[in-house]
């Protein structure tokens, strides 16, 4: 059981740090009004205005982004294979063909289901 002393100690330290940080910032932090501080946080850029029609984005953006990720990852794998093509030889070629064929099934699925049509 004494093995768990560090686990408990770590938990107490972590919780203590969180409470300490919050309490100290409430006690000592200055509270000056600044509009930018109260804006919603969008990775440091100016927040974009609300989109049309009740704050909803068309789902098409989401599908496009997902598709981009899938084929982006394909490139990530293709690139090192292309660099090491000679040394990986026939084994590498077959593995890549299997990989690309699997991704092609995804492509066929998206195409057939209408994921590539914008309207």
């Amino acid at each position, binding site marked *: 059981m004494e093995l768990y002393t560090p*686990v408990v100690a770590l938990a107490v330290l972590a919780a203590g740090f969180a409470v300490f940080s919050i309490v100290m910032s409430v006690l000592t932090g200055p509270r000056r009004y600044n509009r930018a501080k109260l804006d919603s946080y969008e990775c440091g850029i100016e927040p974009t205005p609300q989109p049309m029609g009740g704050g909803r984005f068309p789902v098409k953006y989401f599908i496009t982004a997902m598709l981009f990720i899938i084929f982006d990852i394909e490139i990530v794998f293709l690139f090192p294979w292309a660099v090491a093509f000679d040394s990986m030889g026939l084994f590498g070629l077959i593995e890549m063909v299997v990989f690309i064929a699997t991704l092609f099934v995804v492509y066929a*699925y998206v195409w057939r289901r209408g994921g590539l049509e914008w309207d």
Partner: protein
Amino acid sequence: MDALLIAQGVSRFTAPALDYHALAPEIILTGVLVVVLVLDLFLDETQKYLLPTVAGTGVLLAFVPVLTLALTGDDLRPMFDGAYVSDNFALVLKGLFLLTGYVVILMSNRYIEEGDYHVGEYYFLLLSSLLGMVVMASSRDLITIFVALELLSIPAYLLAGWRKRDLKSNEASLKYYLLGVLASGVMLYGMSLVFGATGTTVLIRIQERLAEIEGGQLDNVVTVGIFFIIVGFAFKVSAVPFHFWAPDTYEGAPTPITAYLSVASKTAGFVALLQLVFVGFLGQPDVWRPLFWFLAAITMTVGNLIALRQTNIVRMLAYSSVAQAGYILVPFAVAGENAEALQSAQTAAIVYLIVYAAMNLGAFSVILAVARKTRSGEITSFGGLFQYAPGLTVVMSIFLFSLAGIPPVAGWFAKFVVFRAALDAGTTWSIVLAIIAGLNSVVALFYYSNIARQMWMMPVPDGDRTPIRVPAALGIALGLCVLVVALGVYPEPFARLGDLASLVP
């Protein structure tokens, strides 16, 4: 300079030796799920009934190499430097996963089509998740275990929300997803600590390295690492206090998926734990034994006590499956006191997993069949079932008595091996845990027999006595489960499978 280094690095590349026979179940399953997805694109609505047939046949096809591998008998087939192993342990559990998957496909057969859901995608995701479990049974490496876990979990998050116009189903999916991801994060943190301390991800090397560095200054890192990994899997197997997602997810998900999550997904979590504890962290029982003791005791007790108060049968079975997870955790809590206890703990865990799969899938099949008529999940909707569906009543009673652990059905034998494991260990702690498990079995009898009482003795709530028509596929699923559970009168095969699937040398 960089290019030169890369060139030197890859010049040493040698193609890994692949054992295609050992990989055949995974390859067939991958092929079938691709076929299901493509077929769905080109079938019209009237032909979609073919998809479950293709999926089910594919799962049975993947079962064939499991049998041939078992018959060839040359046990250990390691690949990728020991990271992926096909041995008896893997084969027994792959067989269990594939049959569980087959039964779930049979259960889904009508349910999904009648609900106007996306049929093709449903079976595609189910097979993907099943593939993750089959891979899990062979994973002997932290990274492979993690990939297998994500492969089995991510489709399951989607499947839990399959009735997408139902708010409860959305809730089920969201809760399962958020807590599942949190658990993965905790587990990954633990894995990174173990990797940091040992410098390897292969479980058997971790075992060697941990023995070397034991007593050094890395002990604390290893302890925290193992602790976090086990906590991550405790979420997956819905052990208390990490069980909060289970009842809501089980209630909201489509019933076949509830059966799938409560059986297959939970088994996969236990399989990972077995591999981690009995291979990777075998030399560190002082770290995991107290943790498992605590988890087992509190999981059984809390699961059973809350199950007593449930009025919805799916929620009741959800808490019952939490409690059952507690029983399966008992062998972990008592393992490693001596060589014999280690062996019997492992046998007990595997036997319990096999029996639990059959009896829980069976109980859910009956619920599916009855709900086709009553359209209700309340326990009172089972009132007077014997008067219009005597067959289903008898079968359900068998499953309930098996879950409660009453002889001579299989659930009794599963409990028996768990108690034997606790007594083999023979320490005060293990005896105390056995007593807690015994007391819990008595508590569990109350709520299981309450359903039996409803079915046999209560009047039919709305007086509607039209018989229930059980679809053929569901009938086959029920038949398979009854067969396994009835095997409890001759439990030799379970014990054989459990002994065969030994990870301990």
